[in-house]
C-alpha cells in the first residue's frame, strides 16, 4: 500500500483480476444498460477491514521522545510532500487522568492560529524550525509543548482543537491532528532516516 511509498498512490482499492474480467464481459454485452452491474463490487474483493484513508494516502512516521521523554509525535507525509503533524498514541499527555483539557496555539512569538496563508504559492506562510513550538496542550495540572518535527512552512493549524480539545483524546491520529507543514525536499531528506515506521514504533512502545 502507501506505507513508505514516496510516489503518489492515489488509487483506491484495486479489484482482483477476476472482477476486472467480469467487468469487461459486462461492458462487451451491453455497455449502456449494465451500469448497475458495473458498480457492484465482487464480494471476494472486499476485505474485512480495509486500510484507512490515512494508511492509504500517507506514509506514517514517528518520533518518540521528541526533545523530551514521552513526547511522542507523528508525521504523516503525503506523496505531494505535505506533512501532517500530531500526537502519537503513547504521548504522555494522552495517558494522563482526564486527558487533554485545552489547547493553546499562542506560543513562541505569535499565535499560530492567527496565521493566514493565501494563494497557490503559500507566500505568507511562516517558516519554522523542527523544534519550533506549534501549540501548548494542557491536561489536569500539566502542559506539554507540541513541536513541528520538520523544518518548513506552516500551512495550517487545526483550530478545531481550540473548541474541541477532546479530539486529541478520541482521535489524535485523525481528526485530532495538530498542524500541516510544507517542508522543502532537502529539509525532509535530512530528517527522514531518523524517523521510525509505524511497525517499529508499535514494537518500541509495546502497543497493540
Amino acid at each position: 500500500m502507501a506505507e513508505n511509498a514516496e510516489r503518489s498512490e492515489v488509487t483506491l482499492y484495486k479489484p482482483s483480476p477476476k472482477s476486472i474480467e467480469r467487468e469487461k464481459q459486462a461492458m462487451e454485452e451491453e455497455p449502456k444498460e449494465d451500469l448497475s452491474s458495473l458498480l457492484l463490487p465482487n464480494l471476494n474483493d472486499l476485505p474485512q477491514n480495509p486500510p484507512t484513508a490515512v494508511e492509504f494516502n500517507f506514509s506514517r512516521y514517528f518520533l518518540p521522545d521528541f526533545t523530551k521523554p514521552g513526547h511522542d509525535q507523528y508525521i504523516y507525509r503525503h506523496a505531494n510532500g505535505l506533512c501532517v503533524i500530531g500526537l502519537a498514541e503513547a504521548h504522555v499527555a494522552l495517558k494522563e487522568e482526564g486527558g487533554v483539557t485545552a489547547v493553546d496555539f499562542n506560543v513562541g512569538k505569535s499565535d499560530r492560529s492567527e496565521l493566514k496563508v493565501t494563494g497557490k504559492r503559500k507566500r505568507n506562510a511562516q517558516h519554522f524550525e523542527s523544534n519550533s513550538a506549534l501549540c501548548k496542550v494542557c491536561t489536569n495540572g500539566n502542559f506539554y509543548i507540541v513541536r513541528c518535527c520538520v523544518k518548513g512552512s506552516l500551512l495550517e493549524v487545526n483550530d478545531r482543537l481550540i473548541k474541541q480539545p477532546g479530539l486529541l483524546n478520541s482521535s489524535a491520529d485523525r481528526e485530532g491532528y495538530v498542524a500541516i507543514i510544507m517542508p522543502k525536499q532537502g529539509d525532509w531528506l535530512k530528517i527522514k532516516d531518523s524517523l521510525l515506521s509505524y511497525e517499529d514504533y508499535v514494537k518500541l512502545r509495546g502497543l497493540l
Partner: protein
Amino acid sequence: MEWQSALGSAKLCLPPCHVIRDLLSTGVCVRCIFRLSGIRDRDCYISSINESELISFLEEQNEIEYNSTTSTSCCVCLGVLCPSCVVPEKPGADLRETSSVNELALLISDVVKGEQYRIDEFSLEVSLPPVITANERALRLYLKQKYEKEQWFKDSFLCDHMSVKDTLKLVLNASLEKYLAVQNVETLSSSFRIRLTYSHSETSQMLQSMLPNGRDSKKRERGSKENGSSKNCNESDASAFRVLELIEDQNFCTQFQVPPGKVDKPCQLVVACYRTPTYIGGRYLKYSRNVSQSRWIIDDERMGETSVEEIIGENVRQICQGDGYKFHSAGREDIDVRMLGSGRPFLVEVPNSRIMPSSTEIKQISDKINHTDKKLVGVKNLKFVGAEAWDLMREGEAEKQKQYAALVWISRPLEDDDVCNLTSLKDMDISQKTPIRVLHRRSPLERSKVIHWMKIEKVEGTTQYFLLHLCTQAGTYIKEFVHGDLGRTHPSIGSILGCRAEILQLDVTDVKMDYFN
C-alpha cells in the same frame, strides 16, 4: 478583345489623355490608372491590357502620340496588380518572378495542393505593405497640385475607388476558383484561408526612416537584429498605418516623394494557407482505473497506462490530418475514478486540419476508439461542432450537477436508521477545506458545496459495505466527503453516521449538461 467594349463604356471615368500620359510616364500601371479613375467593371481588369494597347486604344480615340516607358514596376501598387511579384518557390530557394494572373493563380493553387488540403471553399487574405497607401496618397497630392485648376478635376476624383486589395481579389478570384475547383467566399468566413503577404523592403525601409515617429526607428533596429520576424513586421506595419493617418498633407509632402518614385523591383510575395481550428465534440467514458484524463508525467515517468486525452486526441487528429490536438473537457476525474453512464462532455481542437471530416469519417473515429482491444475509453455522440461549443461547455460550469456512486465502508454495521438518515438529507450544505492531497498546488480555502441527495444501495453479504449514490454540486470533493479528510470536510459521511467511514471506489455516473447529447 473584350476589354475594348468594356473600356468603351468606362472611358468616361478616365481623365483626359494628357493626364493619362503623365501618369504612365510617372510609372503608374494601367490597372492602377483604371482603379484610381473609379472604374469598377471587372471586365476591364480581367484581361491584361498593357501600356501600348491602352495607348493605341486612346490614340484611336483621340489621336495622341506617346513614347513608351521603360519596364519598371508600378510606383503605386509596386507590381501587385500587374500582377508581377517575386516569389520564393521554397523557403531559401531561388526567387521566381510571375507576370500574369494565371501564373500567379497556378502558383497559389500549387501551394494549396502541395499541402494536400481537401477544401470546398476558400477565402483570400491579402496583406500589403503600408508604403502602398503612402504611394496612393502621394499620387493624389501630386495630381491635385498639378491639375486642380483644370475643368475635369473634381475633388472627389481619386477618393472613391477600389483599393489595391480589392482589385487584386477581383482579378485573382476567378482564376483561383478555376484552378482550385471550388468557390471563393468573400468575407473571411471560410475555414480555409489563403494568405498572400506582400512586402517591399526597398520602399518600406525608406518609409520607416521618413516617418517622424521615433519609436519606429527603435523597432526597426530591434527588428533588423531578429532578422525581421513576422511579428515585428506586423507591429511596424500597424504603427506605420497609424502615423500615416495622423500626418497632415503638408507634412506628408515634405517627408515623402511626390509623386512617388519609380520602382525597379516588384513586391515579394509569400503564399501561405491554413485552416482555422476544427472542433470535434462528444462525451467520453473512462472504464479503467489506471488511465488519467490528461497526459501525466512526473520525473520522466508516466503515471497510469495512458490518458483519455491521448486516446481521443490522437485518433481525431489522425483522421482530420491536423498538426496536433488540444483536449478540453467539462471537468475531470481522478485517475482511479471511472467515468460511466452519460459520459463527460469534451472538445478536441485540431489546428490546421487538412480535411473537414464528413459524418462517415467521424463515425470512423468513434469506431476506432470504441473497438480497441483494451476497453479503456469510449466515446458517444461524437460530432463536428463550431467554435461556440467551447463557450457552451464552460458556461455555468459551477452550477452543473454531478452524480456519483461510491463504495463505502463504515466501522460498524449499517442500520436502517442510517439509511433513512442519509436519504432524508436534501440540498445539504457542507464546508470543505482544500483537501490535503491537492493543498500543495491549490489555494488554502474553505469552499461551501451542496449535496443534493443521497441513496443507499446495500451490498448483499456484507453489513459494513454499501454503495452510496449521491448527486452533488460541481466542484465537490467526494472522497473527502466520505472520509472527512481529518475533519477538514464537515459534515462528512463519518460525522453524520457517528463512526469512521472509508471510501474504496468511486465512479462518476452522470454529468448533467444540456448539449453534447
